[in-house]
């Protein structure tokens, strides 16, 4: 090892230039990266729900829409209607808008004195109170618009733009904003729809990166300065962190990836974790460079390298192992984060071991730090000493207490909810969830699930099947508005037959009659009125249910029911839609959670077994991890924090980082036992020496993740909160539970005799 340490000093320039060049090269790639704001892109392309939804787009054209919602006391007031009409009319002229759905564009099909009348739902703006109430009555009877583009209480009306497939989000959102500016009024205007959400998300990601990074770095600088009170102690770990962030983020465009909502976690994680190794080296440097020492710069550099290589590499490897277990997720950004964070940590690890000693050997020796007795340290020391006393006097009670409290908190696990609703990215009062709430509660629902039927659609057998399924869907409380070709046929049947006639409000019994209904409609309606419901040759039909919830559980209920109903049905091609993508995402989150968790525990356990050459070591270190996991999920349930794409990554990260404290404790404990201390004394000594390092290490991680509270995204904020909770519980586990376990169990791998063998 010392030969290698010498080489590090001899080739120091090569090492310094090499690392800086690498960081500059990768950093230069960062501006090339693109932002991905589409939820769909979180799932691989060959995932069932994505394939099916793409098939729907292929058969029936894109289903993207933007909504302008006009909110006022009564939308039938002349001012509100005039404004709505102007917005509707001008929206049609925006390039990229395929079709507009509004009170002025959607039809009213009605039968009147032997005539079938097809006209816009609102033909004239009512001038008198009487006309207004007549219009209200007419709209109530028109189920094409009632409850979908006008709310049942007439406080909302929507103007919906169905978009062409190739239109860019930013362009269309800007156009819609301009449209609203050009039509001012006293009514409240709310914009909704996925393209709007995506534009907002992209913007928020940019803001997040711009805010979290500098803030995180600043917090870290302050922390480093408090720890080391020396310029090199601040600058060197800081430079390593910066370089590892540049390296990891530069990999994104090089791998051909895009930045996702949760990718902002990568630099934050690196700020929190990548400085750990540098901190250890600087601490050791300051320890060796005590008053009156006679080491040369080169000797100091070589010494810190040789002393710390093993523990730093080991803790680094467990962290990387935990991160890599994110590959157990099928969700693309989670896997990417796993790889990026691992690469960043590996970079930080090598840079800490090679770059920091290289620089240290070049710098003139620093003045030794005289430990001034500031008020904080005795507190920590007193606390650690207290831990030592409690642990040694009541180890069994501690184990019992930890077990009972973990079991108590674990009740919360029962309440953990999985949710992938993109509206929950934002706080409740943000425009995006606000619009979603309006749409869900009053305008038929924002998410959709679709069933594609195949065969001869004009065949009354299939038409009736669509009709029955639509009715069944409407009975479900989660379902808002539904659309299908069967519904249009029924509408026509109401216009064509009088109430007392047999054919009123039903699908006709012969194929010819169905065909003739369509022929009739084609005389008075637009040919593309049905475009989203049936394809050109009448071989595929689309039944779409809009859901008034994006809660995964409720959506699953509808999807499961539909899948069960359509299983083995030759007439049904598939069940798909954006709702089904969200639902599958949720399932993958849960599965990925368990898989990556299992993998992480397994990998970390194996590493510890190798490190201590003992199976028991792996098992003992798994105990605090298991309790942390139970606490984590329990608290999630208690605080109603949902398991989503961000929070699902917690556990494997936590295991990789949290096990470090256990490793540090066990390592030192074994050394003290070898030196002849009994378990109680060894525990006390370890707690007051290495314990301090462990606390600082955990604090640096916690402080690093605190900045996540300022993120624009709720899942990222929750992630920050939960990291802090779980790192704290790992810390407490390592400082209290592990010592207690060591004292009570007296595991053989820590006993002096075993080690001497």
């Amino acid at each position, binding site marked *: 090892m010392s030969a290698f340490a010498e080489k590090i000093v001899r080739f120091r320039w090569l090492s310094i230039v090499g690392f800086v060049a690498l960081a500059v090269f990768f950093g230069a790639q960062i501006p090339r990266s693109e932002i991905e704001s589409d939820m769909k892109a979180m799932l691989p392309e060959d995932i069932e729900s994505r394939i099916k939804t793409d098939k729907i787009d292929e058969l029936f054209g894109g289903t993207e829409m933007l909504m302008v919602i006009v909110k006022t006391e009564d939308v039938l007031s002349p001012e509100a209607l005039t404004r709505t009409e102007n917005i509707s009319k001008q929206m049609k002229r925006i*390039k990229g808008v395929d079709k507009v759905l509004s009170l002025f564009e959607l039809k009213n099909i009605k039968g009147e004195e032997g005539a079938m009348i097809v006209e816009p739902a609102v033909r004239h703006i009512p001038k008198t109170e009487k006309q207004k109430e007549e219009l209200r009555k007419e709209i109530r009877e028109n189920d094409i618009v009632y409850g979908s583009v006008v709310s049942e209480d007439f406080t909302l009306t929507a103007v919906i733009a169905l978009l062409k497939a190739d239109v860019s989000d930013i362009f269309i959102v800007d156009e819609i904003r301009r449209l609203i500016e050009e039509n001012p009024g006293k009514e409240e205007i709310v914009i909704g729809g996925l393209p709007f959400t995506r534009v907002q998300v992209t913007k928020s990601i940019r803001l997040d990166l711009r805010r979290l990074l500098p803030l995180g770095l600043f917090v870290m600088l302050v922390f480093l300065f408090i720890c080391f009170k020396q310029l090199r102690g601040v600058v060197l770990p800081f430079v390593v962190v910066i370089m590892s962030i540049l390296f990891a983020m530069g990999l994104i465009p090089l791998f051909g990836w895009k930045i996702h909502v949760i990718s902002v976690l990568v630099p934050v994680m690196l700020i929190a974790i990548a400085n750990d190794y540098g901190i250890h080296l600087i601490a050791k440097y300051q320890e060796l460079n005590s008053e009156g020492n006679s080491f040369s710069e080169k000797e100091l550099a070589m010494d810190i390298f040789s002393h710390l290589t093993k523990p730093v590499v080991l803790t680094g490897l467990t962290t990387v192992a935990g991160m890599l277990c994110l590959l157990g997720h099928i969700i693309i950004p989670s896997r990417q984060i796993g790889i990026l964070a691992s690469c960043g940590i590996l970079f930080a690890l090598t840079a800490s071991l090679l770059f920091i000693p290289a620089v240290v050997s070049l710098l003139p020796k620093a003045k030794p730090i005289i430990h001034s007795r500031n008020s904080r340290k005795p507190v920590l020391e007193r606390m650690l000493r207290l831990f030592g006393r409690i642990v040694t006097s009541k180890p069994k009670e501690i184990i019992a207490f930890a077990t009972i409290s973990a079991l108590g908190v674990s009740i919360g696990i029962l309440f953990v909810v999985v949710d992938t609703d993109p509206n929950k990215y934002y706080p409740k009062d943000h425009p995006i969830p606000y619009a979603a709430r309006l749409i869900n509660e009053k305008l038929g629902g924002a998410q959709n699930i679709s069933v594609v039927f195949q065969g001869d659609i004009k065949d009354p057998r299939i038409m009736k099947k669509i009709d029955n399924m639509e009715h069944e869907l409407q009975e479900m409380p989660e379902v808002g508005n539904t659309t299908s070709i069967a519904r249009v046929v029924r509408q026509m049947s109401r216009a064509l037959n009088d109430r007392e006639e047999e054919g009123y409000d039903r699908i006709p019994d012969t194929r010819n009659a169905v065909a003739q209904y369509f*022929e009739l409609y084609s005389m008075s309606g637009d040919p593309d009125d049905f475009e989203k419901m049936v394809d050109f040759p009448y071989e595929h039909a689309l039944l779409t249910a809009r859901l008034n919830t994006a809660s995964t559980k409720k959506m699953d209920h509808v999807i499961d029911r539909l899948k069960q109903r359509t299983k083995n049905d030759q007439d049904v091609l598939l069940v798909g839609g954006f709702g089904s993508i969200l639902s599958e995402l949720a399932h993958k989150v849960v599965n990925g959670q368990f898989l990556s968790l299992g993998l992480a525990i397994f990998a970390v356990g194996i590493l510890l077994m190798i490190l201590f050459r003992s199976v028991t070591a792996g098992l003992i270190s798994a105990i605090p991890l298991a309790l942390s996991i139970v606490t984590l999920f329990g608290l999630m349930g208690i605080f109603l924090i949902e398991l989503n794409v961000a929070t699902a990554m917690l556990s494997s990260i936590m295991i990789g980082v949290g096990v470090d404290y256990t490793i540090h404790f066990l390592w030192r404990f074994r050394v003290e036992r070898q030196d002849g201390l009994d378990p109680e004394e060894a525990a006390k000594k370890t707690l007051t020496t290495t314990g301090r390092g462990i606390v600082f290490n955990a604090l640096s991680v916690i402080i690093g993740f605190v900045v996540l509270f300022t993120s624009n995204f709720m899942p990222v904020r929750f992630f920050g909160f939960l990291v802090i909770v779980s790192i704290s519980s790992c810390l407490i586990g390592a400082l209290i539970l592990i010592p207690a376990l060591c004292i009570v169990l007296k595991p053989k791998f820590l006993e002096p005799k075993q080690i001497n063998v």
Partner: protein
Amino acid sequence: MKIHIIFGLILGILVLFLTAESQEDLTAKQIVDRSFKTTKLAGSEMLSTMTIIDDEGRERVREIASVTKLYDNGETEKRLIRFLSPADVKGTGLLTFDYEKKDDDMWLFMPALRKTRRIVSTERAKNFMGSEFTYADMTPPILDDFTYELLGEEEIEGTPCWKIAMIPVDDDVADENGFSKRITFIAKQDFVIRRAVYYDLDGDLHKELTVEEVKEVDPENHKYRPMHMLMVNKQNGRKSVLNVDEIQFNPDVKDEFFTTRYLERY
């Protein structure tokens, strides 16, 4: 016999002379007006095929038989259409009274239901029978709703034409007709439109109409009909072809054809 020929010749020359004379003074608006009148037949019997083609080339074919007759000094055209194929709509009939000065009356008879319904639709921009043709394409517009500009002269497939721009006077008219501008190529020889280019409400190219095989159906009154009309939607790639397979000028079409009673007699 000879006298007839000579008389015919003199008449023909006279007509030619007169039309040639008058053409020089025609305004764009007058040309458009004439172009609509030139296809108005006192009465006709016709077999035709409407083919609707989507952007992937899939076709829907409708064979229809129709009779028309002018009433009220040409101000009202009554028309009966009967579907011959496909089988599922065979016998479906559409009776239209096309008034010059008010909304049209329409009735549809559906044999499978043995039912006739009046259809009320006020929008001329509406597509006809699910095709790319609109009602506005099939029936003459209100002349004063547009301004006209003679842009020049151009040959279309060897036929000299006037090139005329037709622009709606206001947004309401534009909305109603579904275009912000239409460039029409009207043949000098027979006043029949040879080509028309439609611009949508954004001013973008929308549809293009091509007319082929213009036939003089009523030689006595110099009335013409195109045998082949193709409308291509440049925005969505859909096409519609209206092909006249057989046409017979017949001013004496029986009046009883144009009744709902006859519509239902199938």
